[in-house]
C-alpha cells in the first residue's frame, strides 16, 4: 500500500517536473515568435553591406562641436541625461575623451600638442568581429547583415557579460529606471527599462527612414562621414583613400568600423 502510494508520488513528481520544464517554454515560444515573421524594408531606407563611419577630428574645433553631436544622439535615443543619482552608473552612447584614453595602446609622451589636449568623439565601434555578440547568452546583442551590432532591449537579461567583453567601454547598463532622467522623450524611439544594457546602434531607426545617423547630421561640415565600407565608390571609402586614418585597439582583432582622421 505504502509502496504504491510512493511509486505514484514519484511518477507524479516526474510528470510535474516535465510539465514545468517542457510545456511552459513551448507555449511562450508560440506566443512570441518574431523570428518567424518576414520583415519588409522601407523603400527609402539607406542600405549597405558593411556600414562604417569616419570621424575627421580636424573639423572639430570647439567644445560645442562635440556637444551638438552628443546632444543630437542622446535626445533622439532617449538616453538619460547626466543627472542620474550615481555618476559612475551613467549611460552614454557617444562621448568624448583624450587621445591617451581613446588609444591607450598607442600613446606617445611626445604627442603633437593639437592631438594631446584634444577630445576624441567616442562611440560603439560597430566591430566587424564583435566580442559582445560572441558572449551574449541570449542573442539580445546581435549583428545585422549590414554589420550593425544591435540590441534587443526586450530580450536582454542584464547579465552584463557584453560589458565585460567590450574592449572599448562602449556599453552602458541601466542600473536604475532611466525614464525619470530623460528630459524630453522622443516617442519614436523606445525608452529602456532598468536592468538592460544599451549602446549606440548606428541609428538603425533613422537609416530605415533614409536619414543619416543623428551625430553625423549634427557634426560640423565634413566632420563625419557615414557609408558603405564595401562599396569602393562610397564617400567613406573616398575619405579613407585620401587621408591617413586610425582605429581603436586594432590589435584585439575586433575590426572596428569607426575610423579617425587626426
Amino acid at each position, binding site marked *: 500500500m505504502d509502496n504504491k502510494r510512493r511509486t505514484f508520488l514519484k511518477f507524479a513528481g516526474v510528470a510535474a517536473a516535465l510539465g514545468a520544464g517542457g510545456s511552459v517554454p513551448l507555449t*511562450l515560444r508560440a506566443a512570441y515568435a518574431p523570428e518567424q515573421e518576414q520583415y519588409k524594408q522601407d523603400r527609402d531606407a539607406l542600405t549597405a553591406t558593411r556600414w562604417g563611419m569616419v570621424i575627421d577630428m580636424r573639423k572639430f574645433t570647439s567644445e560645442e562641436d562635440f556637444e551638438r553631436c552628443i546632444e543630437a544622439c542622446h535626445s533622439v535615443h532617449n538616453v538619460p541625461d547626466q543627472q542620474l543619482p550615481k555618476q559612475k552608473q551613467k549611460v552614454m552612447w557617444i562621448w568624448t575623451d583624450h587621445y591617451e584614453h581613446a588609444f*591607450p595602446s598607442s600613446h606617445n609622451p611626445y604627442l603633437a600638442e593639437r592631438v594631446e589636449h584634444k577630445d576624441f568623439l567616442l562611440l560603439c565601434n560597430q566591430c566587424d568581429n564583435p566580442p559582445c555578440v*560572441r558572449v551574449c547568452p541570449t542573442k539580445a546583442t546581435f549583428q545585422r547583415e549590414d554589420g550593425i551590432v544591435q540590441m534587443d532591449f526586450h530580450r536582454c*537579461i542584464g547579465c552584463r557579460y557584453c560589458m565585460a567583453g567590450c574592449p572599448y567601454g562602449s556599453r552602458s*547598463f541601466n542600473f536604475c529606471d532611466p525614464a525619470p532622467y530623460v528630459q524630453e522623450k522622443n516617442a519614436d524611439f523606445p525608452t529602456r527599462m532598468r*536592468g538592460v544594457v544599451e549602446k549606440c546602434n548606428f541609428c538603425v531607426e533613422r537609416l530605415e527612414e533614409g536619414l543619416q545617423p543623428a551625430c553625423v547630421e549634427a557634426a560640423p561640415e565634413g566632420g563625419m562621414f557615414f557609408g558603405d565600407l564595401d562599396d569602393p565608390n562610397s564617400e567613406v571609402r573616398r575619405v579613407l583613400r585620401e587621408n591617413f586614418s586610425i582605429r581603436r585597439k586594432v590589435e*584585439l582583432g575586433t575590426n572596428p568600423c569607426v575610423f579617425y582622421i587626426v
Partner: protein
Amino acid sequence: MLEKALYGDKKYWAWVIFLLVLIGVGSVFYIMQLVKGLTVTGMSRDVSWGFYIAQFTYMVGVAASAVMLVLPFYFHDVKKFENLVILGEFMAIAAVIVCLGFIVVDLGQPQRLFNVVLHPTPNSILFWDMIVLNGYLLLNIVVGWTNLHAEYKRLPHPSWIKPVAYLSIVWAFSIHTVTAFLYQGLPGRHYWLTAIMAARFLASAFCSGPAILIILALIVKKVAKYDPGKEAIQTLAKIIVYAMIANVFFFLLEVFTAFYSGIPGHQHPMIYLFSGMHGANALVGWMWLMSLCGIASLVILIPPRFRNHSELLVIGLVLLVAATWIDKGLGLVVGGFIPNPFEAITEYGPTGPELMISVMVYATGLLVLTVLWKVAIAVKKETGRA
C-alpha cells in the same frame, strides 16, 4: 529519507531558524534591489561585475572540489573516504545552489532568466556555464542521494551508479574550466586574458573547497558526533597542500610574465591590486593580507608535523580559505575591470544591500547543506556506518 532532517535537537533547530532569519532579512534587501534596480549595488559602468559574480566564481570552485573525494573513492577505491565522500557530494549540491543564486541576484532582469534556454547560444560561454553547472548539480544529487538511499536500505551501492560517478569526475573539471573561460576569452581585459586561468582556477578550487569541507566536517564532528575519520582528513589535507602549492605557483607565473615582459597592460591590474594606482588603493590591504595568509597557510600545512596536529591543521586551513577567497572572491573580478578600457580608474566596493543579499544567498546554501548533511549523518549513524 528526507524526513531525517525534521528530527533534531534544540541546537539544530536554533541553527535552522537562524539561517531562515538571515534569508528573510536578506530577502528584504533583494526586494529593494528588484524594485530599484542594481543601482543599490556598488557596481558601475566601469566595474560592471562585482561581489556577486566574484562569489559565484569562488563557489564554483568549492562545488568542483568534491571531485577530490569522488575521484579517489570511486576510481581508486580509497575506502577511508567512505564517510567523507557523501559530505563532499552534498556540499557540492549546496555550493552549486549558491552559484546559481549569485547569478540570479546579479541579473538586471531576472524574470527573463529562461531566455538563456529559450534562445540557446552555443557561442556564449555563459550558455555552457548554465549547462555544466546544472548538469553538475543533477549529477551530485543523483550520485549522492542514490548511494545514501542504498545504504539506508542496507543494500550495496547500485552498479549503474559507477559510470555516473565517473561522469561527475570529468564534469567537475568542466565546471571550473568553463567558468574560467568566461573570463579568459575576453579581449582587452588583461588580468583575465591568460591561458593559465583555467588551471589556476582548478588549483585554487582543489585546495579551497576541500579545506572548507574539512573545517565544516570538524564542526560536525563536534556538534553531531560524526567522525569522518582521522586518516581521511589527513589524506585530504595532503591533497589540499599540493593543490595550494600549484595555485601559488600559477599565480607567481602570472607575476613573472607581467613584470618580466614589461607590457603595461599586463602589469597595471597587478600594480593596482598590490600597490594602488593614481591614489586608488581600495584592495591593497586585502591583497597583502591574502599574500600573508597564503604564505602562512603553506608554512603550517607543508610540514607533516604541523599538518597532522589537529588544531594547527584547522588554523592552516582557515588561513588558506582566507587567502583563496580574497584572491578569487575579491581581487580577481575587480582586478579585471581596473584599469578600465580607457586606462582610467573607477574603484569598486560592495554596498550594504549588496552584502546583505550575498548573506541571503550564502545562508540559503548553508540551509541546503545543513538539511542534506543532517540526512546523511542520520542515515550513516542509523546503519552503523559511522
